[in-house]
């Protein structure tokens, strides 16, 4: 016990140097793991790691699609194959079920959105980077703000402002006597709860996934001893690998869900549907 207190007091227990043998407590991941010291500062503008990752992901998406479709051939070769795979996935699984064939003009937007979110999520398991930028709330928030402006703006443009607000509040086919209860709930749900859940779903998924990976990665290092107790560290490592696989699935799924719901909200803005 004195060893623990002494080590803590000496201030030498960083997460990288914490070992069960050196008397440091387990460096549990906290909210501080999501804040980074800025890489450089210009006046009040601080450029930190999530910003770098977002720029990097934009660069990757742009470079990939530019390289794939620079000289498109009728029979695809090479990178164009993979690029077509990606675009057809977005078109057939996300766009066509929600918006139909005449919504094909939305393909560039939905494609960019899907791949941007997916590449950013994937950075959570890429070595050296190891941080999903979407686990900072501002990045899903700004994407959701964009989607909100889109579906509110298009609705007001296509259906007229007052008629669109009425359609948001009153679902078609509702009996008249339930409207005083249903209309405020439906209006609040469509205008405020939808962007909230859209952003928090993506953000909290990435936050929880990153924390899970952190817990087991830190435990693997913390429990690394030179005796038979190495089995604890090995078990932690195995769980880390399994969770990385789960995280890969969740990252793809969350990018998919964000894009599907965007397409759904936009289709609801075009017509009053159901």
């Amino acid at each position, binding site marked *: 016990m004195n060893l623990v207190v002494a080590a803590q007091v000496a201030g030498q227990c960083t997460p990288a140097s914490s070992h069960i043998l050196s008397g440091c407590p387990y460096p549990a991941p906290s909210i501080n793991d999501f804040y980074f010291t800025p890489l450089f500062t210009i006046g009040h503008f601080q450029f930190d790691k999530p910003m770098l990752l977002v720029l990097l992901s934009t660069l990757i998406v742009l470079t990939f699609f530019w390289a794939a479709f620079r000289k498109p051939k009728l029979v695809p070769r090479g990178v164009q194959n993979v690029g077509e795979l990606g675009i057809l996935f977005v078109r057939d699984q996300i766009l066509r*079920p929600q918006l139909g064939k005449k919504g094909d003009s939305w393909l560039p937007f939905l494609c960019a959105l899907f791949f941007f979110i997916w590449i950013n999520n994937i950075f959570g398991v890429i070595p050296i980077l190891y941080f999903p930028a979407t686990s900072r709330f501002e990045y899903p928030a700004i994407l959701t703000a964009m989607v909100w402006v889109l579906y509110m703006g298009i609705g007001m443009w296509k259906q007229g402002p007052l008629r669109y607000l009425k359609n948001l509040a009153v679902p078609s086919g509702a009996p008249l006597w339930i409207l005083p209860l249903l209309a405020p709930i439906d209006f609040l749900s469509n205008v405020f709860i939808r962007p909230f859940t859209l952003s928090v*779903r993506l953000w909290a998924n990435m936050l929880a996934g990153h924390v899970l990976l952190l817990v087991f990665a830190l435990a693997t290092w913390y429990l690394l001893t030179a005796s038979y107790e190495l089995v604890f560290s090995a078990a932690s490592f195995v769980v880390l690998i399994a969770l990385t696989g789960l995280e890969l699935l969740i990252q793809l*799924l969350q990018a998919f869900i964000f894009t599907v719901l965007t397409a759904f909200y936009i289709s609801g803005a075009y017509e009053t549907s159901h």
Partner: protein
Amino acid sequence: MQLAMHLHHLLYVAAGGSVPGSTSTPYQLHIINLGALAYGLAAIGPGVGIGIIFGKFMESIARQPEAQGRLTGFLWIGFALTEALALIGIAVFYFLK
């Protein structure tokens, strides 16, 4: 009697009253972590909901295997929408830390 006293003590501290000799923020119960309790309660509903979704998926494929392709899309959409509520709970955990 003892149970009622303990419950009264818990509610008193949860409401923001501080027990002398303890260091605690007004938002955190120092006997249990309120954020962990909040997440535990938040995970009940989505746990049941996701079980229902996947159970119905398996049932419907057992009835009609040809429908698997059409239903798989809805499966993942339903799963993510239900999971969102449990994950809002875990976000609350970090607010209350």
